């Protein structure tokens, strides 16, 4: 009998958890309510804001899009009030699909996208080779802590929108400082076209073969499936971020369900990402500053989503993932997934327990370390670095000791790059070892060492499985060079700088809070 209603009238009961049979309408009400409650409780989406929905074709993200569509429709009570767009990333190249299969999948996607009247962007993963280095640079949000209430935040947002519209009246969204031509240029780089009205027609849907080859070279050079998965997630996140920024979306909704997030949490623990669990699995992920990633489906189990999709005919498309058909022991992700699902069968509260524990995680450095703004960010995952090279009473310290003990000769010291006696006179050509070559010698001799220094613990562990840096997309390599150059320059002038006082760090504009 239905848990909520007393009668037996509706479509057959669905057994979702033991002791909780549902009738169809009650289930729908419960399902829709959860979605609204998740958005309403967190109060992060402002009316009129542009929100990008990331769609993989799978059941969770399809369900999410369906919920948004229903929520925006005129008939729904208290309808949602944001402006959605959809992004689909074609990862067929790394998942072993041929160009024909990819084209077929894209056609299937478009059929569904056309029934949903939102603007959409179909982007292939090869586009990472065209990304600018600005993707890797965190955007600071300025003095944030004083917008306490939701109302104030909404007012602030609306003010911002009005200012943008005054500056650029001919376009509805987009970055305020970019003109129309600049937007078109960026879009050409992404080979999509500017949305005119509601429909969007993707440009050349297949990327250039050279880029596909470059992408496949990169992924096949990675030795383990675990590292390949992580790399794919990183590149995907960068691509979504870039499209969101260019098109003026300030929020991105990801379709991760409760089940997937529980698995992701345990997997990230095993990958060494314990410091970042709140960002990786929490409702909101604000590591990029201007674009916030949200996870509105995080309260739904896969089972609930599957039932809903079946009962209400939510369309989805199956696409192979990078680890489809891989053996169970092939990667940490697969192992953890099968472990959790097996354990769930034996102890039915496993996933909800992990979920509840994940809600207790906070986005703060442990033991209240230095203010977040000052710490460096990882080059790839853009979280604050969690490595403290001075404290060797840690797991990281123990590993460093092992590595040093293993070498016969002492490890190459990363020099400050200060030139010694001049080795040449003016007018001679610049040789690599020359005193006038002002790049740090670590970069000259070992670009990989300085690259690794810019990564967090788990990205470093992944890089052990990546033997060569060259196949990486240019934006990553350029940003790495830029950062090491900047670090070297700072070290050069370190002795002349005054230390930034604590007060200045908290109030960069010199304003003190009014209490």
């Amino acid at each position, binding site marked *: 009998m239905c848990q909520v209603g007393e009668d037996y009238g509706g479509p057959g009961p669905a057994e979702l958890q033991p002791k909780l049979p549902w009738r169809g309408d009650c289930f729908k009400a419960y399902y829709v309510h959860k979605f609204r409650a998740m958005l309403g409780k967190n109060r992060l989406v402002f009316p009129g804001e542009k929100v990008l929905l990331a769609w993989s074709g799978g059941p969770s993200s399809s369900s999410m899009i369906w919920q948004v569509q229903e929520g925006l429709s005129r008939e729904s009570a208290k309808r949602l009030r944001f402006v959605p767009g959809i992004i689909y990333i074609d990862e067929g190249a790394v998942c072993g699909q041929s160009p024909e299969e990819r084209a077929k999948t894209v056609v299937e996607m478009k059929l569904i996208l056309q029934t949903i009247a939102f603007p959409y962007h179909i982007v292939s993963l090869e586009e990472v080779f065209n990304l600018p280095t600005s993707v890797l640079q965190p955007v600071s949000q300025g003095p944030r802590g004083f917008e306490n209430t939701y109302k104030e935040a909404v007012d602030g947002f609306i003010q911002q929108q009005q200012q943008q519209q005054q500056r650029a009246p001919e376009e509805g969204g987009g970055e305020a400082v970019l003109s129309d031509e600049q937007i078109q240029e960026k879009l050409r780089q992404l080979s999509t076209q500017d949305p005119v009205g509601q429909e969007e027609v993707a440009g050349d849907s297949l990327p250039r073969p050279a880029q596909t080859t470059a992408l496949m070279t990169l992924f096949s050079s990675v030795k383990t499936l675990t590292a390949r998965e992580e790399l794919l997630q990183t590149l995907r996140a960068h691509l979504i971020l870039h499209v969101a920024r260019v098109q003026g979306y300030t929020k991105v909704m990801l379709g991760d369900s409760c089940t997937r997030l529980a698995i992701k949490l345990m997997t990230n623990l095993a990958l060494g990402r314990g410091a970042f669990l709140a960002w990786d699995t929490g409702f909101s992920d604000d590591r990029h500053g201007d674009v916030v990633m949200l996870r509105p489906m995080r309260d739904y189990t896969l089972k609930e989503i599957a039932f809903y999709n079946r009962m209400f005919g939510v369309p989805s498309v199956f696409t192979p993932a990078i680890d489809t058909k891989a053996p169970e022991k092939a990667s940490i992700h697969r192992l953890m997934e099968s*472990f959790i699902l097996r354990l769930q069968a034996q102890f039915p509260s496993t996933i909800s327990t992990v979920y509840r524990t994940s809600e207790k995680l906070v986005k703060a450095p442990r033991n209240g370390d230095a203010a977040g703004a000052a710490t460096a960010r990882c080059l790839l995952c853009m979280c604050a670095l969690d490595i403290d090279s001075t404290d060797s009473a840690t797991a990281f310290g123990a590993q460093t000791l092992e590595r040093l003990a293993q070498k016969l000769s002492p490890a190459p010291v990363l020099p400050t790059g200060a030139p010694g006696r001049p080795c040449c006179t003016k007018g001679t050509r610049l040789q690599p070892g020359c005193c006038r070559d002002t790049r740090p010698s670590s970069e000259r001799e070992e670009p990989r060492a300085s690259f690794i220094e810019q990564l967090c613990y788990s990205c470093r562990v992944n890089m052990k499985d990546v033997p060569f840096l060259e196949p990486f997309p240019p934006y990553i390599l350029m940003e790495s060079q830029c950062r090491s150059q900047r670090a070297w320059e700072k070290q050069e002038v370190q002795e002349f700088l005054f230390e930034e006082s604590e007060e200045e760090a908290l109030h960069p504009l010199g304003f003190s809070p009014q209490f």
Partner: protein
Amino acid sequence: MPVPRCSGPCGGVRPAALRRPRTGGAVCRSCFCNAFEAEVLSTLQTGRLLPPGAVVAVGASGGKDSTVLAHVLRALDARHGLALDLHLVAVDEGIGGYRDAALAAVRRQAGRWRLPLTVVAYADLFGGWTMDEVARRAAQEPGRARACCTFCGVLRRRALEEGAQRVGATHIVTGHNADDMAETVLMNFLRGDSGRLARGGTLGSPGEGGALPRCRPLQFASQKEIVLYAHFQELDYFSEECVYAPEAFRGHVRDLLKALEAARPSVVLDLVHSAERLALAPAARPPPPGACTRCGALSSRSLCQACALLDGLNRGRPRLAIGKGRKGLGEEGEKQSCTSKDSSGGPSRAGAIQAF
């Protein structure tokens, strides 16, 4: 395939005897043992775990971890003059067919190394309750797992504390290795134990409210390397697993960890690193420690967990202190403290813990 030369500090003088599991480098026996001992020393020094002059109670179970721990501490003390006064403290949980043989191994070690040995038995300390008796009681509740390890773990820590105080120790060391730490963090997430997650992670506890400071010098050493070290030093230890081990939840996690290690060898240290960096909400952290109203031990509630568990056992409700909702704890205990045998015919329960 020819055996490679050692890649350690000896410079390839000797042929390699093993490949280090975590780093994959081939080393000879003496380079490996030296490196292993150097790493333990580094853990002790950088964490400032054992100051000179410390009286150290080594929790000795007869198993490989505590055997290696005692051996390494002894060697480091002799070689580097750490000025440590080492005592072996063994705990007799009363598990027939297992603990007796393990204790025999500890006695042999104590004789060989000429270290003082103290044995603390549950039966003496906890009013006649042995683990076998506890297991029999807990098994009476149908349909649920026995949770023997829950009882044993809590009571053992209490017993270790008692033993350490008997020998006048200033520090307690245990042989937990990196694999144990990794399993613990996975288990804590799977069981939702946010209190332990918030508390744990690094170098043991500093010793608050009268409890002795505890540390784990082997906590960055992998289990495989401990076994290799014991093999190369030809140490005599007891290697069977506890009779109740197959029922333990930790078994699932142990299998998972083995499989993860095959996929990525560094996963154990990666998990330890994750555990060190967890950031939990302040509300999830345990309340500041006080003292148990019955035995005076360190406790965050009015009754310490050992007293609470024993209370449950004595009242014929073994699961009273396990899980949430401990209503009814500590109420009846005061009224019935005079009787020597309770109604269900269990061992006498004069109070909770008998102090010396």
